[in-house]
């Protein structure tokens, strides 16, 4: 299935958008449906509860790797994240072989840098995303991405206080809520343009929309996100 999706991306077929992002939209629609106001079904409650506990657990597992070199915890993180990391790379247009290799390298880096993980600063997903992102830049451009603040190889020059850390956790929760508020169309263009690094023209082709519509949708999506996040 995944292989098929990737072929579609590479050959630029028309159903690129629906095939590749169907799953993504589905997740968002489900997430939206599971929001409190939308009439909770039992399964929706279970799903949203799962989503919450999952996030907590993976943070704890990374902490266990740091503290005890816990390989069981590592294997559990691997089972959840490695296929998503590979899928994330492939959605960005990377060939399956390289995506496999880099997903493995990302997981290796999770193990090696576990001691730098601070659960008060970021969720497991966010932290692992930054590792995957940096490795993707290293691999594609053969240069080191000057972004390491979650790795703490560089300390920011301003001191972060405990209340800042609390703010950061709240802020991450706010992002989750904000992104659930975006329409799936808006989410999709943010995804394609920023995280998959697709130029406007390619997004227009993939979604079968005029170029101007893509640009204005992206602008409105960012405006909407900005409003939802609020000015700091």
């Amino acid at each position, binding site marked *: 299935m995944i292989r098929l999706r990737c072929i579609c991306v590479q050959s630029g077929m028309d159903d690129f958008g629906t095939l590749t992002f169907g*799953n993504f939209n589905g997740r968002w629609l489900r997430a939206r449906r599971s929001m409190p106001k939308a009439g909770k079904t039992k399964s929706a409650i279970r799903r949203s509860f799962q989503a919450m506990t999952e996030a907590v657990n993976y943070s704890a597992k990374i902490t266990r790797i740091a503290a005890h070199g816990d390989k069981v915890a590592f294997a559990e993180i691997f089972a959840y994240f490695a296929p*998503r990391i590979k899928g994330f790379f492939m959605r960005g247009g990377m060939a399956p072989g390289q995506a496999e290799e880099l997903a493995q390298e990302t997981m290796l880096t999770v193990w090696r*840098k576990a001691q730098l993980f601070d659960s008060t600063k970021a969720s*497991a997903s966010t932290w692992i995303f930054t590792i995957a992102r940096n490795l993707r830049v290293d691999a594609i451009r053969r240069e080191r991405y000057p972004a390491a603040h979650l790795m703490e190889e560089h300390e920011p020059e301003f001191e972060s206080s405990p209340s800042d850390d609390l703010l950061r956790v709240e802020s991450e929760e706010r992002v989750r809520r904000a992104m659930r508020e975006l329409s799936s169309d808006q989410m999709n263009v943010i995804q394609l343009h920023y995280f998959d690094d697709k130029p406007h023209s390619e997004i227009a082709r993939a979604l079968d929309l005029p170029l101007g519509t893509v640009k204005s949708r992206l602008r409105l999506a960012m405006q909407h996100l900005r409003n939802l996040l609020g000015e700091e």
Partner: protein
Amino acid sequence: MTHRPSDDILMAYAAGNLAQGPALVVSAHLSLCSESAQRVHQFEAAGGITLDDAPVAELMSDALEKVLAQLDGESVRQIPPRGRHLADMPGGLVLPAPLQEYDIGKWRFLAPGVQWSSIGKGGTRRNRPMLLRSKPGMVLPEHTHQGVEYTLVLKGSLHDAIGDYYPGDFIMADASLEHEPSAGPDEECICLAAVDGRLQMKSRLGRLIQPLLGF
């Protein structure tokens, strides 16, 4: 802090899609501006959510074993080596942390009262970041842009038609601007700059130095 990168730039940075030079300018800005750093963290959290929602692509059946076999005997922390800094920094200026690991060349003549110094070796030459050092009141060489220029003030101040910029302030000038900033009258100005795209110097002097800079 008054002048910060737009959310568009911060999102592109968080997603890993800025070229190295511009990314370094943004990264240096983040080390000086907690508001922007907080925003980038929010956008990285958006990245975390897109990772959670990424399509599941199963790995090879032996992938976990292969990774497990590599876990032992590796050091946890690899600190990047510090770069060689040949340019002296006046007045005890400490460069932002993200610049520390890059090699920084000697100050070289760019225009009367203005010097420049190259940063690092990576990336394409025209996207390579540089430091600019200007005597008080000097106008930085006039140029028009085919790309986007990212500038971060590190010391002193810069002034243009749009605003006044002090240490930590970020300036982005795109093709629509004829950008001609000048250093404040009281103090020399040092800034970090990078170009995303081609930069064309307009003045005769600019045309002369353009080949040297490799723009």
